[in-house]
């Protein structure tokens, strides 16, 4: 079974959580937003976004609802749950620790 993406799994989760933390978004919107914010650097195979979304939903971090959307038709809109918000905090913190550690390592190596 091929890996969902080249991104570190945790990183993709973090990105999704962060993306929908501002406002609820559908899958298309999340993909667009991530593409836009990262300046096309992190180009995710768009299909592989969905397994991640489903996993997050399965774990109760996010919830989904079919709603009318800006696309002119109903779409499945994902929003952060309360538990998801806490999870985002935790993941951000650990990300910050990791990245600063890596940063330190690279600077001083």
């Amino acid at each position, binding site marked *: 079974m091929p890996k*969902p993406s080249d991104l570190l799994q945790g990183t993709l989760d973090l990105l999704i959580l962060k993306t929908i933390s501002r406002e609820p978004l559908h*899958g298309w919107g999340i993909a667009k937003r991530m593409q836009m914010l990262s300046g096309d650097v992190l180009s995710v195979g768009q*299909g592989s976004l969905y397994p991640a979304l489903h996993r997050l939903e399965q774990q*109760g971090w996010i919830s989904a609802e079919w709603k009318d959307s800006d696309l002119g038709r109903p779409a499945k809109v994902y929003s952060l749950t309360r538990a998801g918000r806490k999870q985002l905090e935790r993941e951000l913190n650990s990300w910050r620790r990791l990245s600063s550690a890596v940063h330190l390592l690279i600077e001083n190596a």
Partner: protein
Amino acid sequence: MRIVRVIRHRLRSLLQRSRVDFDLQREFEVHLDQLVKERMADGMSKSEALLAARREFGSVSLAQEQCRDMRATNLIDDLMRDLVFAFRGLTKSPVFTLAVLLSLALGIGANAAIYSFMDAIMMRALPVPDPDSLVILNWRAKGWPDVMKQQHGDDNGHHDAEGVYVSGAFPYPFFASAGNQNELLSSIFAFASAGRPNLVIGNQAFLGIGEYVSGNYFSGLGTRPASGRLIDTEDDRPGASPVAVISYRLWQQRFDGASSAIGQTILVNRKPFIVGGVTAPGFYGVNPRDSPDIFLPLHLLPYVDPRVRHDAWFHDRNNYWIEMMGRLRSGTTLRQADVAMATRFHGFVSATADNDKERANLPKLWLQGGGSGLDALRRQYSKPLCVLLTMTGLILAIACSNIANLLLSRATGRRREIAIRLSLGAGRGRIIRQLLTESLLIAIVGGLLGVLVAALGIRLLKWLLTYGQEDFTLHAGIDGRILLFAIFLSMLAGILFGLTPAIQATRVDLAPALKESRVFGSRARRFGLSFGPTQMLVAGQIALSVLLVVAAALFVKTLSNLHSTSIGFNTEKLLVFNLNGKLAGYSDRRGTMFYENLRQRFASLPGVRGATMSDIPLVSGPEGGNSIIVPGMSAARNLSAKIAVIGPSFFETLQIPLLLGRSVGEQDTAEAPRVVVVNDVFATTFFPGRNAVGQHFQFEDKPPIDVQIVGVAKNTRYSSLKKETPPVAFIPWAQAPPGWLNGGMYYEMRTLGDPLALANTVRQAVHQASPLVPVADVATQMQYINSTIAPELTFADLSTGFGILALLIACVGLYGTMAYAVARRRNEIGVRIALGAQRRAVIWMVEREVLVLSSIGIAIGLGMAWQTARITASFLFGVQPNDISILALSAAILVLCALAAGYAPAWRASRIDPMQALRNE
């Protein structure tokens, strides 16, 4: 919160799979459409845009699959799929599946029902604290020990299989001495049956079950009262104020469980007692057979029964009547206590022996574990129950063979499919799991049905085992243990009989299995008869069925022998009941008047053609005999005759023909000359070749009672269907010597309609005559007689049922096997028919295989029946366990059933259209 969300989500993924999949599809569509729109806005054509969108999105089906994996319900999903698959597979052959299920349900149900009785009778511990430290005191001797001058009590004493006399009855003085300062037993308590005393509560009189108990009985057992207090040592001494303890059941029934019951006065055999307390719910004394309604202090025995002299019962060291139990001190073993108590008892009995003859055979004490109480019931039922449990075990084995057969044939039929799946990379474990799911599905459904069958079976068994015994209480029912037993059995059956075929099916050599043609089946299995596991199972089933059919035939033959014995009087529409005027204070002269007045009253009731009375019910009563002296016959021959005390119109009501002379009637008063009617056996035994009417003989008594024979009646059975008619003398009730009517009077009423419909009328009539006299044992004459052959009836009924069941189940197995074999050989048979084989020859070809299989099974079965003959011998009457005609009959039944079971597949084989069969591939 999160947990709730997660669970809800998972449930949704699990239960609404298609909905979830559909949602996923839509979600992807939205995304893809959006991509296409964007590309088209960039100026691509629609088809280019579609391709680009697909590229950008990646594989849709892969993403879908990954999303499904994310839902992580695979295990359950697989199980569901397996279940659905198994269900579909099983419903494809619904008849066979149903038959297998039903046979499993019956097998498990029958086992669970019998087991619940075994459990209740043989294994259940007394409901008291620490039952394992209880011990029962018994003794044994070579035959009746001469130091025992008297013995009282119903169950006390019996000869065991080796002729050793075993008893639990002891003289009271031994109890008194044993209880003092015992270093091994913390307490020794005693009890004795009080029989069925007449209880009066309020203005209701009825017969209850009574037990005399020593003052430390309740404290020794460690049980607590549900209300009030229990009997203690202060209550159990001569002259103590009479206090009784009633059972929880009696308390509920007669006092509605009111606490005001404590302190009330009730009458026990007309003697007032104060209700002191109520036993704990579920407490039934120490004998699982009966639940006493009332417990009385041991020393009040002479108060309740004036015939009992205190000295003779409490000081006579040769009068054996009380039973004893004790409790081991902690740290003491049964063995230690056994040795110590045996020594003590030996010292006691040695001193009571007067001469060498008595000293030669002294009773020896032995201790027995008492955790489950006295074993009278176990003695009575353990062997019948073991036989029944063996029978149901065999049925279960036959039923399980059917499961194995079904699974084996299904697995063989799917060899190719399984080989394909294995070669495509399916794990062996996964396939075994799937096959096991199938067998467990059968097992679970079968087991659940089995519990239903058991619930019905227990009620049926209770009814069968208690034939005519109103006071019989058995604590059997469906409970957790029975459920566990049933589940355990069905799981065992499912796994044991499912795993082997499953493992076998997956252990295939792939290449040949794949090459195997659907039509010709495996090369390994030659045409014609082959003796594989399936055939072995069927032969085994038939062998076991033979055993059960032989047993059924033997028991039915026994019953028909019993029923065809000529009873000697008309038992149709005859109501019988007992009442005892003595319990209401009517004795001797007043008693005979009371009985006769009631009899006349009964005879005048509407719907009654005639009424009479006797001191014992015929064919179903105890034996009462007396030595007689016949003029001209040597007294050294120890002549004796059985006795029945009878009322007016006895022979007329029972329709016993008088051969000579007259009946006894109202003219035969106490003052008139003493007369008797004798039966034919009496006349021919004691007055051979002479007219017995007018002859005199004497009952041995002090002084001897001289009587004249006034009539000779035709023979009737006296006390049992199984015993030959003894010489009987019928004595008119008014001339019965004092004390002969202590057991009360049985009335026999010939009715126009259903005898039992008159039961209430009778009760009212008696209540009017005397509210203190209870009517007991109301039943028809046939019920009375049937109660004497209850074990035979039970065996005949159950074993017939079991035999038919076994036959059915085995035939189902045979049918399935043959049907399957024919289906597999469809092509071959088609070829044979195409080449000119006669249809009859085809039928014969299949039936021949059936015959060979069943012959092997029958041969094995008859061999087993021969071997096990002696086990059943003791339950038979008038038939030998290896009766050739019975064995032959059973074999014939089996062959016929087998041929019948095989006929349907054989017929179908003969109807195979060769064209179709050959075109099939």
